[in-house]
């Protein structure tokens, strides 16, 4: 598989060529807000270099609101229509590499048999993922601490390395070849620059828990859960912004003459998530809810699928209203509850 160089001033032509073959999805600028993955129209100028905070790619693959079924009841007859989206060849560009790995977690949840999710599958299975490694790593990233990032490469179709005035495009799957058609070959200098950037990504924010098998270290009884729960204000931001959190709710709504059954985001951080009709709630306090989210990501999902549910994208680190820094929490867990500041 041949790597190529994409000069930044050639991006319009590159996009035009891709759009003739695929539906191209990439982060688009939004006013006062993180960029958002959108299907591109001709002339759009997406943010391909990963330099900006963006909504997680799940917002495209697993929309925050999606109609599953439309049910019509007329004249004593009931008809159900499955609103499965169109399965068309797509390319997602500008996906942070940790976000691309998070899609692996979503794939495990939604594509594994016996119950494949037809809605997710229609958007995902025919979609190539082109990851990006930006020129500057975000301060909140800690990807190399959660996993061996070398193992992430084959999970995407290509990786674009931002080398300033050009992208180095590393093709990592066979179908990824079709993305780089017609692009120039890299020079030795390009390869060296790319290797340097990869090394910086790999070694960025390697934290004290990096060598620990977190799924063995996270304990049910740990004073750290109590500490998080004390300050947590129980909003759902960490889950909603997380690229791998995928829990959802299903609700019905009557829309004129038909019923729409839709799904929308939900989170284990909300009290009513596990509240049963009869009033019993197994996680009625914040402590078990705080524990559930982290145990699920770092332990349960690893047990279930063999992948770690957190890829170190740092969104919750940056955005948590009360600065519950997941990196600090994991350091604490591994240091036997001794306070240990996050190293830089």
């Amino acid at each position, binding site marked *: 598989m041949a790597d190529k160089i994409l000069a930044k001033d050639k991006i319009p032509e590159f996009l035009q060529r891709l759009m003739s073959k695929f539906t191209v999805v990439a982060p688009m600028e939004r006013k006062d807000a993180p960029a958002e993955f959108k299907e591109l129209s001709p002339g759009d100028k997406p943010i391909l270099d990963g330099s900006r905070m963006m909504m997680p790619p799940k917002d495209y693959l697993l929309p925050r609101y999606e109609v599953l079924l439309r049910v019509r009841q007329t004249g004593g007859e009931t008809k159900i229509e499955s609103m499965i989206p169109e399965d068309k060849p797509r390319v997602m560009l500008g996906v942070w590499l940790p976000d691309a790995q998070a899609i692996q977690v979503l794939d495990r949840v939604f594509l594994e048999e016996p119950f494949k999710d037809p809605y997710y599958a229609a958007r995902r299975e025919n979609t190539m993922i082109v990851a990006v490694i930006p020129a500057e790593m975000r301060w909140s990233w800690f990807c190399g601490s959660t996993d061996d990032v070398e193992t992430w490469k084959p999970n995407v179709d290509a990786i674009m390395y931002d080398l300033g005035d050009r992208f180095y495009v590393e093709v990592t799957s066979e179908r990824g070849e079709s993305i780089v058609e017609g692009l120039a070959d890299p020079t030795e200098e390009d390869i060296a620059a790319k290797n340097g950037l990869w090394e910086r990504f790999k070694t960025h924010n390697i934290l004290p828990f990096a060598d620990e098998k977190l799924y063995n270290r996270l304990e049910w009884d740990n004073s750290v859960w109590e500490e998080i729960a004390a300050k947590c204000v129980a909003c759902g931001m960490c889950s909603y912004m997380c690229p791998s959190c995928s829990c959802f*709710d299903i609700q019905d709504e009557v829309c004129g003459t038909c019923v729409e059954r839709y799904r929308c985001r939900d989170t284990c951080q*909300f009290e009513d998530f596990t509240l049963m009709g009869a009033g019993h709630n197994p996680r009625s306090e914040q402590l078990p809810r705080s524990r559930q989210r982290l145990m699920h990501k770092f332990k349960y999902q690893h047990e279930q699928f063999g992948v770690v549910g957190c890829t170190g994208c740092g969104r919750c680190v940056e955005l948590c209203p009360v600065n519950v820094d997941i990196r600090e929490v994991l350091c604490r867990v591994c240091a036997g509850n001794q306070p240990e500041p996050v190293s830089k």
Partner: protein
Amino acid sequence: MSEIETRIREEARKALESGAAEVIVGWGAGSVPFRTTPVFITKPEDVDKLVWNPACVNNLAVYLPRMAKDKKVGIVAKPCDIRSIVALIQENQVKRENLFIIGLGCGGVVDAANLEDQDFRLQDVTAIEWVADGLRVTTVSGEHLLSCSDCLRDMCLLCTKREPAIYDVKLGEAVPPSELRVCGLSELPEERRKYWSEQFSKCIRCYACRQVCPNCYCEACFADRIEPKWTAKKATPEENWMFHATRAMHLAGRCIQCGECERVCPVGIPVAELAREMAKIVKEKYDYEAGDPDEEAPLLGTFRESDVDPAHRSE
């Protein structure tokens, strides 16, 4: 400012030792130098965990309704946080006698988002402190002076109430605002509608705005109710509009404008702008300001003959 920090710790220690408070809620060092995190101090020897710097953004009054029900709680509070406390007292959510308030004069706190667009890297920052007429950010490569308007939160730039309204101990002097930024919504309803439609369409319904709000203490929020269902959980522009508009109405005459809602919004919805607008209307029509200790009761809990009947607002 480190002198104030030392005195906060002294007062906290005294309060714990004398029994004036069983626990002190304050800000502790964050995981990075440009953030702080809420800390709950119960032992006098732990008071050194308390800090005071321009990153002390959180309005800690949010913890009071659940903490100060049955015990004495000390709280380190900025003037805006104290207005929240006043509102909570007026609404019978906490009792004044259960509180020990360490009130601080304030010069405004930093908006971390504003630090992103400066000529230093966030990960290189080692300290942030107040200096005359601005902020000094120390990084691994040197010092950077930022003007208030470049780095403080919008709410702080608009704030004129920089002295604690009520307190048991008062520390520090308020820094007068150097410049007042005037924000305003368009006078035209259709422009306002367009503006808010765009803003609300971004909402992901994480409810961070509601959860950090000290005055959003309802045990069952209308947005979570199933019967009757006021608004659906789905994040569509219409439902988002319903959520934010209802919440704004619910906070009319109650919001003290600390701006926490706006600070925590992950998608940059100017939630506090709505609150400001509501406060302006309340001030104009009822001459009432939430969080004012001279008011005896909440606006909507009292009736004065001079009150405007909102149903007959003639314009």
